[in-house]
């Protein structure tokens, strides 16, 4: 939802007012709410606030979590961390609208030895999984089970893109 006054920024302040016995709701962005001097209740920011209606042509789907851009607009939530990379162009305007910035300057988690170890272990696990799946794939092709082969290929792709 966009601000009812300026129509530029997401409405984050919502309040009810009674004029001549008629109750009406107002939805304003934080800037306009500030100018109007109203005190309201906050609702969670939604992307749809910035984009208005979903863009029908956008059929991209995040490869990691399979979330579409339409879903993101509707829920106001992304599906995984990779969505930010994948939909960077689409999301940046809204992120700037919310924070007035686009670059993190706070704390950075350090990559400890423990984390490196688990990363390696997980990679090894994935490598082992892929090796096994590739064997299955060869076998399926040899036995002319092409439907199975297609499924196994999908699985291999899933494991590989998880990395």
């Amino acid at each position: 939802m966009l601000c009812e006054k300026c129509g530029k920024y997401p409405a984050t302040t919502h309040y009810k007012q009674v004029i001549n016995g008629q109750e009406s709701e107002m939805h304003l962005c934080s800037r306009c709410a500030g100018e109007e001097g109203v005190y309201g209740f906050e609702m969670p920011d939604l992307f749809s606030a910035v984009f208005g209606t979903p863009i029908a042509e956008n059929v991209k789907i995040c490869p990691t979590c399979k979330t579409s851009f339409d879903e993101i607009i509707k829920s106001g939530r992304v599906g995984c961390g990779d969505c930010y990379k994948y939909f960077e162009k689409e999301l940046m305007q809204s992120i700037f609208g919310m924070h007035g910035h686009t670059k993190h300057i706070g704390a950075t988690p350090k990559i400890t030895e423990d984390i490196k170890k688990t990363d390696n272990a997980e990679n090894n696990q994935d490598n082992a999984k892929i090796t096994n799946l590739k064997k299955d794939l060869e076998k399926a092709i040899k036995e002319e089970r092409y439907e199975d082969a297609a499924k196994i290929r999908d699985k291999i792709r899933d494991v590989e893109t998880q990395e």
Partner: protein
Amino acid sequence: MQKYWYDNENRIAVSSRIRLARNLDKTAFPNKLNKEDTAAICKKTGDVLTAREYSFGKLHYIDMDEFSQNVPSLFERHIISPEFANNYHGKGLLLSDDESISIMLCEEDHIRIQSISPGDDLQSAYKKAKEVDDVLCNNIRVAFSDELGFLTACPSNLGTGLRASVMLHLPLSESQGRIPALSAELSKIGLTIRGTYGEGSKGFGSFYQVSNQITLGITEENAIKNLNGIVKQIIISEENLRKEAYKPVLEDKIFRALGTLKYARRVNSAEMIKLLSLIKLGTDMGIIKNKSKNSIYSLIINTQPNTLMLNAKNNYTPGERDILRGDILREKLKEVE
């Protein structure tokens, strides 16, 4: 030794909270997860975070499905969010003994660390939250990018993922009509104020939550420092209004509130918060004396509908609850004069 943060009376600044939003790397966020994956993530993070002793003691893992009868009370005490209270099946909660640290697992984000300190003390709340965050980030790879910081389900939490808030008791600022102007000032600098109890533009009992909105492009320290500075100003202005107030009118209001609760037979929660707010103002200003062991604010916490029933180990209709609440308040306010 006091057990809970609300056991002592804190004037004006009732409590300070820090919330950190974190997610596991390369893992779909909770709203995209099935039951098995949700359980696996709760277990993985739960195991890492319960395995050690912190400055505040240990964290205990709570299976929400086994704890379901406590859910409404946890929500009333701000230990869990409304979203989590509505959607807790198959999820976990980590809680410290004094309930000052609570970690919701698989709420909107995989991990939501919440830390609360009594009074105006964001620093100590942040220190405790950071302690948990360090253990988390040193053991599990979290979703992070150099550009956007900690990656969160809602972009409004990107960057530090840190929401700091201070609960303020502002009866004089409210009755003098200062809140709208304050709200306007705050929104210009990326802060918000909202009522703690009740909905809409006016909360019950003059309790307000002041918090930061912006999490990207600001350091944790500056976000906390900015909020701290503003909170100090709001406190000073409330103090001044209390000093300048016309005493006979104020005293009359406060003693009427005390008189009502000392004798009333049926009290609903809205009236309870309204009147206890005035009694708290009276004790904080030295107009009345609280000789009991309970802080006035702890009475607000403990006589909310679901917490009341949980303490009484019984379910009541709203009508029965109002009678029980009246009984408890009469008893607890005996030593308040």
